[in-house]
């Protein structure tokens, strides 16, 4: 007996609105249909109304987890448009925050993976240790989530020796903890039984479907923008691209834990070799008409911003391609012929951030399946009309 089960747009495994229509045969998934477009942000249009500087804080709000990656990706693109070269100390501090953000994002993901597999103890432990990074970020930037440390031509805040020492001290604790998590994640029998061999994505499929980030690296593709097309100071930082050969969720766990260790090394290198000097230079208000594509290795994968300027103090067009969008086609392949129990794990393994990836809304008629695009004002009118027809609930009573 085949039947279709909707996972989402409201579902405890998915905290964000996306719909996965699963065609099941017993417990086995035979077909998957991913439906997007429950979340319209209107962010790209809004960016055209704001100045270059204001847009830094707007792009930061694309995502709550990798906020710094979006704002950095945008900032380095605009700096290229304006021909501004940030001072070296500014660059170092910018990517210090970037690596700290990668640490916090990967620790968060480890916890989520534990929770999706029903291993709540792992979840609680990783999130406890994530607080260490959050505290460092708060100390460095003043905020836990939206750091707002980028500005055109550098960063907004400097760090002193005391803060430097504190960060280096915390790194020791984080390294010990991460080694412990690698031990648990790759050895605890009930956890490994759930993730080993689940959600296979062969190397050929990963290449053909343009998977990015840890998803691609777990399929043994050493693809990392920091290595392939070094931006900032990554050309002078020694680090390795973490890969795994198992091509499954276990590989994605291992890749992320290995990347954590690499990030600790990078942070240590940045702090030990922090150059002296100013942290920012003045940037002009306008950019000459031109266009630029900015690439950035976010914790989830390659993040791309396309920016077009027209000579004013506002961008003519900003296009954001978040890493989650690039991983959707691969997810469909991973989910096929899996079990229902594997859906949350496989889907969480790409570290989906739907609110990053969503751009526009399409209305789909539930009965006929017809799709159409409508204006916001039309949508509002329809909603009001509908609620006029529904009588107010009169028999609602306090149940006791």
């Amino acid at each position, binding site marked *: 007996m085949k*039947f279709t*089960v909707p996972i989402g747009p409201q*579902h*405890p*495994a998915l905290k964000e609105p996306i719909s996965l229509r699963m065609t099941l045969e017993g*417990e086995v998934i035979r077909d998957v249909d991913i439906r997007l477009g429950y979340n319209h942000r209107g962010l790209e249009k809004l960016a055209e109304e704001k100045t270059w500087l204001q847009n830094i804080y707007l792009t930061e709000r694309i995502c709550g987890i990798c906020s710094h990656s979006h704002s950095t990706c945008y900032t380095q693109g605009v700096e290229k448009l304006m021909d501004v070269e940030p001072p070296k100390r500014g660059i170092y501090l910018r990517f210090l925050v970037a690596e700290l953000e990668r640490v916090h994002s990967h620790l968060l993901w480890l916890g989520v993976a*534990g*929770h*999706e*597999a*029903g*291993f*709540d*103890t*792992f979840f*609680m*432990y990783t999130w*406890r240790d994530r607080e260490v990074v959050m505290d460092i970020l708060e100390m460095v930037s003043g905020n836990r989530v939206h750091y707002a440390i980028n500005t055109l031509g550098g960063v907004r805040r400097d760090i002193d020796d005391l803060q430097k020492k504190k960060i280096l001290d915390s790194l020791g604790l984080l390294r010990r903890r991460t080694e412990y998590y690698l031990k648990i994640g790759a050895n*605890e029998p*009930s*956890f490994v*039984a*759930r993730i080993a061999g689940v959600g296979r994505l062969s190397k050929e499929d990963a290449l053909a479907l343009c998977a990015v980030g840890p998803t691609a690296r777990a399929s043994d593709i050493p693809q990392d923008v920091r290595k392939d097309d070094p931006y900032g100071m990554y050309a002078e930082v020694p680090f390795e691209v973490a890969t795994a050969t198992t091509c499954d969720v276990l590989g994605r766990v291992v890749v992320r834990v290995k990347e954590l260790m690499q990030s600790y090394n990078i942070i240590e290198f940045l702090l030990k070799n922090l150059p002296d000097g100013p942290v920012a230079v003045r940037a002009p208000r306008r950019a000459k008409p031109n266009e630029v594509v900015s690439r950035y290795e976010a914790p989830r994968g390659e993040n791309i911003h396309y920016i077009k300027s027209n000579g004013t103090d506002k961008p003519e067009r900003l296009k954001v391609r978040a890493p989650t969008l690039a991983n959707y086609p691969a997810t469909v392949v991973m989910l096929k012929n899996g*079990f*229902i*129990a*594997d*859906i*949350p794990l496989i889907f969480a393994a790409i570290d989906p951030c739907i609110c990053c990836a969503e751009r526009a809304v399409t209305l789909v008629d539930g009965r006929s399946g017809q799709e159409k695009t409508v204006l916001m004002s039309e949508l509002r009118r329809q909603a009001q009309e509908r609620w006029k027809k529904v009588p107010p609930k009169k028999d609602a009573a306090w*149940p*006791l």
Partner: protein
Amino acid sequence: MATLKTLLYIFVYPGLVFLFVYSTFCEWFDRKVYARLQNRMGPTHTGRWGILQPVADFIKLLAKEDIVPERADKTLFTLIPVFGIAAVATAMMLLPVWHYDLAQPSANSFSGDIIVLLYILTLPTLVFFLAAWSSTSYFSTIGGARVLTMLFGYEVPLFLTVLSPAIMAGSWRLAEIASFFQHKPLLLLPNIIGFIVSVICLQAKLERTPFDIPHAETEIVGGTFTEYSGKKLALFRLMTDIEMVAGSGLIATVFLGGFPGGVILGFIYFVIKTLFIIFLLSLIRALTSRIRIDQVINFSWKYLAPLAVLQLLITIVLKGFVR
């Protein structure tokens, strides 16, 4: 006097009042241990050390809106939680917790009561399945199918291991089994494999991690209980708590030598021994992750069932030596 005693037995101890108080206490204990193992605080605010939190949750759920799905089988959907509570409370009645005199057996202690108790403890599984089936949602249906699939895994090993002490004691009566092991406590040691297997099976019966597959929230929302809310959900939660107490009481009776020493001492023994087993259950819950349904069946038939048979063999061989 006898009537008063029976009434006391049914309503006060170990009847409904005691069951409610003690099962909520056990839930609190389980939550606290689980939380401390996860480096959390657990319940802290309601009552001293948050001890009233399960009661507060129960009352809160009673006050919530109670929704019956339109397409559900309404009678079955409404009756099934009550039936579940009745089943597990009856199971509790059969445990020899209070005043059992082997010379004058009371109505609730008879030869073969261990079989009846095991049978009654199987009913909650059926209740979960019927609850899932009658609510007709996809998530519930999948949950219900999982409940029954899992039953084939853990039920046989549980029966085999619980019956092996009975074979050793040469009796099908819980009170007699307990008193046999009180007189020969050393004979409890060969039952250690059976004890471990039965604790794991009890964990599966209670549908707790790693066996919380029928209501795995990240996969099938609430699973069996997706459509339940308000009073009915409160009753289901209470039912699971009571089942935990009754199940651990059964294991304590057959594997840990029962609860000797009259009312007060027996009560203390009951609390200590059941809490010990609940502690083990919390430990398993904190240290493992949820496994898949096919893995449960594999695990039960590859490891639990052979171990249970091994326990049975050990018991039979040893019985020849003891005699």
